[in-house]
């Protein structure tokens, strides 16, 4: 392990090659990935339908994480703030949709208005209404938070804004835990539509009745999965459109790139920052509804875990990059589900977070992150 350091050797000795080509470190990574890939491949060969089922489950959480991660990544991209309060916006989104559905029956408005319409269409429209409502409430809340808590600190040290974000997060959680707000208890969330499950397998697609065992070798899809994936994709496309095609999006990119110059060009920087917060929060609100549909138990601290995972996913993909957030979130969803299924269930969070560290070691700014010059 002690290479000879001949100073003017024209060719590298084996010892020097090991050092200069970073073989030891790479060897560790290769060893790790070989073990993991071997495990996954054998699992796939052993029981393909179970494996595909896991991947599908991973997709479901991955898309929810993507919606949350986008909020983190957009805010970080524009003000370089890790907005820890974002996770609690998700919680507010869930509770807003809970109240909209259980108290005000918002999802039934079209069904009540036009009872002759097919229930599928009216429930779909109703669900979309709830989604939009939750997004609006969250956007409004984030806008208020941004104006009251973050804006006065725009020129303060970065760490003050971070501590403020932590404070806002605590406030949202524990204010929500008060008895007259959301209560400190678990509340079971009423889904706005009945759940249907389809079994897709060698025998074709068939709707599964409750209590009936699925045919062997089939993969289960539910309408929850379809709704989550479709609505996430639509929102992602919408976001991409806003950021890339509209004037507001152009201004956002300009502000993220260079604030003083953007201000000189006549862009209302504070307004754009507020809009960014609001858009991110709207996506978190949508994620709140979708998360509650997928896991119908809501409580005031429910945002912490998906929020943390989405944040880690955003970093994994390269924080500040929108495609990075999507890719990172999908990887995160898969890592979580597959490590739970095939490596170690109780250690799944540790594995997912080790993945982050490993990715950061290979690409220090995340998968899609631009390599940055170290600050002088």
């Amino acid at each position: 392990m002690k290479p000879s350091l001949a100073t003017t050797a024209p060719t590298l000795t084996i010892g020097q090659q090991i050092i200069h080509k970073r073989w030891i470190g790479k060897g560790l990574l290769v060893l790790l990935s070989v073990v993991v890939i071997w495990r996954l491949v054998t699992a796939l060969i052993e029981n393909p339908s179970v494996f595909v089922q896991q991947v599908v489950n991973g997709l479901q959480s991955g898309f929810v994480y993507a919606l949350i991660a986008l909020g983190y990544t957009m805010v970080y991209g524009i003000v370089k703030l890790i907005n820890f309060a974002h996770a609690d916006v998700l919680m507010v989104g869930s509770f807003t949709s809970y109240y909209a559905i259980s108290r005000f029956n918002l999802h039934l408005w079209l069904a009540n208005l036009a009872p002759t319409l097919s229930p599928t269409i009216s429930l779909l429209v109703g669900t979309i209404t709830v989604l939009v409502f939750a997004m609006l409430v969250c956007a409004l809340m984030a806008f208020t938070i941004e104006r009251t808590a973050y804006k006065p600190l725009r020129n303060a040290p970065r760490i003050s804004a971070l501590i403020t974000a932590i404070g806002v997060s605590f406030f949202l959680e524990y204010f929500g835990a008060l008895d007259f707000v959301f209560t400190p208890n678990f509340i079971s969330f009423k889904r706005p539509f009945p759940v249907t499950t389809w079994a897709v397998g060698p025998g074709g697609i068939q709707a599964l009745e409750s209590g009936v065992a699925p045919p062997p070798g089939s993969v289960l899809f539910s309408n929850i999965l379809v709704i989550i994936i479709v609505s996430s994709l639509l929102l992602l496309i919408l976001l991409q459109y806003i950021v890339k095609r509209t004037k507001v999006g152009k201004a956002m990119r300009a502000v993220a790139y260079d604030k003083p110059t953007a201000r000189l060009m006549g862009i209302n920087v504070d307004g754009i920052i507020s809009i960014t917060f609001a858009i991110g929060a709207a996506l978190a609100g949508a994620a709140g509804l979708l998360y509650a549909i997928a896991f119908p138990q809501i409580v005031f601290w429910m945002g912490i875990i998906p929020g943390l995972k989405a944040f880690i996913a955003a970093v994994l993909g390269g924080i500040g990059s929108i495609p990075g957030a999507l890719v990172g979130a999908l990887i995160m969803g898969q890592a979580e589900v597959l490590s739970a299924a095939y490596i170690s269930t109780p250690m799944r969070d540790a594995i997912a977070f080790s993945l982050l560290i490993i990715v950061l070691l290979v690409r220090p700014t995340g998968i899609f992150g631009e390599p940055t010059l170290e600050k002088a």
Partner: protein
Amino acid sequence: MLKRMDRNTLVFLAGSVFVILLVQVLISINVLNSFWLTILRIGGVMGIACLGLNLIYGFNGQFSLGQWGFFAIGAYAAADVTYRWVNDHSASGLVILTLGVLLTGLVFVLLGRQLAKIRGLDALSAFSLYLIAVIATGFLSVFLGQFLIAPVTGLINLLPAALGMQVVFFLAIIGAGLLAAEASFLLGLPVLTLGSDYFGIATLAITVIVKVLLDNSDTLFGFVEMKGARGMIGIPKIGSWLWVSIFLLATIVVVRNLLQSSYGRAIVSVREDEIAAKAMGIDVANFKTLSFVLGSLMAGVAGALYAHINGFLHPNTFNFIKSFDILIIVVFGGLGSVTGTVAAAFAWALVLEGFLRLWLPPGFETWRYVVYPLLLLLMMLLRPKGLFGGYELPFLRHSMPALRLKPATAAISNQAEPRPASAEAPSESTPGITLSQEDAQSSSEG
């Protein structure tokens, strides 16, 4: 000059001994009941851990969220040692921890010397080599430890029982601190190469990983007495005020002496300007590692004390959310302020655990965590530079410029911030004159 320094030192030491003994007297005549005593001890423990983070973040500029993870490592390691001593009457934990820590330290030093000769070794390769070494020494110390358990147990049993307990406790604290330091050295190797925010996130990930490991400590790792996610009970509650205050005082003195040495100036220079520090011949990576390891050592010591104050450990205590508490205290106390950190730690414990539990009107008990963040926001708006805004006790004053904090909107990376010329002025001022933090702050924002 020397005389003034001496007087300051004397006043500081006499003052702290007086305060410590005053509290001890108040305890013995029962003026301070156990509620307030616990709060004071928690404040002291947080003070130690926060001084560690201040060393990492405040003085060396590494935004770390991993302090709580190392705190957890220290807490569980020390608790395991004393648990085995009290409940199994065997020094097995003590022997294996001490032996493991010493052997690992020895191997780290020897391997470090060998690796220092190799130029161009990347962090990940070094990490792999150290990892292999750690695994090997772990097995070796467990193997060798088997032969030492019985004699060491007998040796400690020669002492009176109470004294033996305290000796085990003291060794457990030291061992736990060293274990946290070695863990931070190993994990810091690859992670310290990351840029500022990414380093923070990677250390946050370390905290989460430690928590998950603790959740599974009994099922996957065989530490049955830690009871995994059910929480570890039966830890002797022997973390007295004297122990806490002695360790706090020692930490303050260590931090102060470190910062006034050439090592301290090198650590601060890394925070101020990495490239300039490098140009001055400072081994930046080395000093980053040094402050990270020292800070984590303090976290480990604090965790060990905490375990013996509480008598009960649960992995949920080491949730990443709680790791923000340390960061909050450090920012409140003022980054790069020793006095402020210690004062803020006690203030935090008194307010959050004491006053907010006692003073809220009936019916509003659940509002504790609603009031706390509001206080937090208020503090951030009113005292963004910390509780004392850069004031230091004369003993702790150091002749270094205050931290230049960057505005939230400043781009951290690809757009180099044009630095106002006046910001450079403090470093050229006469040594010995402490610049108030306001000066440096206003000049950097101007």
